[in-house]
C-alpha cells in the first residue's frame, strides 16, 4: 500500500528540499520504491539537490495538463535504481496546478511506488496546500528558532483542516523533523531545546538533524546527503528518520560530528 508523504514547513529555508532528497534516498536504499515530487512550481530545486537538473525534459505541470505522460516526466536516479524524481516546472507558476490534476497524478503515482514524497513550497498558498492535499503523512520541518516553530504550528493547523483526509474526518499522520540543530547551543540555553519544540507543537518527533557542513557539501555536488556521505552525522540522522517512517522503533539521539584533532583546533572553518 503506497504512502503519500508531504515534506512541509510554512517557512522557507528550513530544509524541506534537503530533507525530501535525504529521506527519499534513505527509503530507496532500504529497498522501497520511491518517487520525490517537486511541488515548488516556478522555483524548482529538488532536481538540483538530486543532481538531475540537466535531465529534466517534462515536468509535473506537463503531466497535470496531459501534455506529457507520467512515464515521460519521471527521471530515474543514476545511483539508486528504485529512486525517481518528478520535477516541477521552472517557467510556469503555482496557478498552473489544478486540484483535479494533482489528485490524478498522485493517484497514478500511488499505483507505481511504495512512497510518494511531496516537496512542498514555502508559504501557505496554493502550492503548499496542493502539496499537502492528498497526503497520508506529513513531515513538518522546523529549525530551533521562533519564526520557524510558529510557522510549523500554522502548517499543523492546515494539515488538520485543509487536507483531503481532514475533510473525510481522518487525520494526516504528522511528524516533526528538527533540522540545523546545534546541541551545544541548546545545552547552553541559547537555542530552543527539543523538549521546548515538542511541547509547543505537541507533535511526535521523527528525527533531529544536526547542523553540519556535510549538508552544504552534498548539495554542492547534487547528491542527497544520505548518499553523498552515509557516515556523516546528518546522513545517519536522516537514515534513522527514514527507518522510523517505515515503522521501526529506533532510539532518538542527536548524532554528533566526529571531528579530528586539527578540525577541533581550527574550529568550523577547517571543514
Amino acid at each position: 500500500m503506497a504512502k503519500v508523504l508531504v515534506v512541509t514547513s510554512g517557512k522557507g529555508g528550513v530544509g524541506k528540499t534537503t530533507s525530501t532528497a535525504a529521506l527519499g534516498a534513505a527509503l530507496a536504499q532500504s529497498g522501497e520504491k520511491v518517487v520525490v515530487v517537486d511541488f515548488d512550481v516556478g522555483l524548482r530545486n529538488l532536481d538540483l539537490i538530486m543532481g538531475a537538473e540537466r535531465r529534466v525534459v517534462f515536468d509535473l505541470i506537463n503531466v497535470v495538463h496531459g501534455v506529457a505522460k507520467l512515464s515521460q516526466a519521471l527521471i530515474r536516479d543514476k545511483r539508486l535504481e528504485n529512486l525517481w524524481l518528478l520535477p516541477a516546472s521552472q517557467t510556469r507558476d503555482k496557478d498552473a496546478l489544478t486540484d483535479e490534476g494533482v489528485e490524478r497524478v498522485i493517484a497514478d503515482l500511488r499505483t507505481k511506488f511504495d512512497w510518494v514524497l511531496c516537496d512542498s513550497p514555502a508559504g501557505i498558498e496554493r502550492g503548499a496546500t496542493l502539496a499537502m492535499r492528498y497526503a497520508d503523512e506529513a513531515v513538518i520541518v522546523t529549525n530551533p528558532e521562533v519564526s520557524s516553530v510558529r510557522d510549523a504550528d500554522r502548517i499543523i493547523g492546515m494539515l488538520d483542516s485543509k487536507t483531503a483526509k481532514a475533510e473525510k474526518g481522518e487525520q494526516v499522520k504528522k511528524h516533526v523533523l528538527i533540522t540545523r540543530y546545534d546541541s551545544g547551543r541548546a545545552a547552553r540555553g541559547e537555542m530552543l531545546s527539543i523538549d521546548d519544540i515538542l511541547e509547543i507543537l505537541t507533535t511526535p518527533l521523527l528525527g533531529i538533524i544536526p547542523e553540519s557542513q556535510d549538508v552544504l557539501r552534498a548539495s554542492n555536488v547534487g547528491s542527497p546527503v544520505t548518499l553523498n556521505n552515509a557516515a556523516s552525522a546528518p546522513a545517519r540522522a536522516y537514515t534513522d528518520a527514514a527507518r522510523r517512517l517505515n515503522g521501526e522503533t529506533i532510539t532518538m539521539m542527536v548524532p554528533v560530528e566526529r571531528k579530528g584533532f586539527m578540525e577541533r583546533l581550527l574550529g568550523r572553518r577547517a571543514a
Partner: protein
Amino acid sequence: MSMNFLRLLSRRPGSAPVARERLQILLAHERGLRGQPNLLGILREEILAVVSRHVMLDPEKVIVRMDRGESVSTLEVDIELPNDFDKRIAAAG
C-alpha cells in the same frame, strides 16, 4: 562544565527560555483565532446584508477589523457610502 563557568563569568543567561515563553503566548493566541473559523468574514457578511437592506453600498467598501488587546478587544466596522446614497434609495423606493 567549562561553559557553565564561562556563563557565570559573563552573567548572560541563555535566551532560549524567552523564546519559549514568547512562542507559547503567541501560539495560544493564534490557535484561538483559528478555532473560530473566519468570525470576521461572517460578521462582515451579516453587517453587509443588514445595511444593504436600507442603503445602496459597494460591498468592497465594507471593512471589518478586530483588534485584540490584553484586557479589551475592539471591533471596528468601516462602511463607506457613496455621496448620493440617499437619492439612490429615494429613486429605488
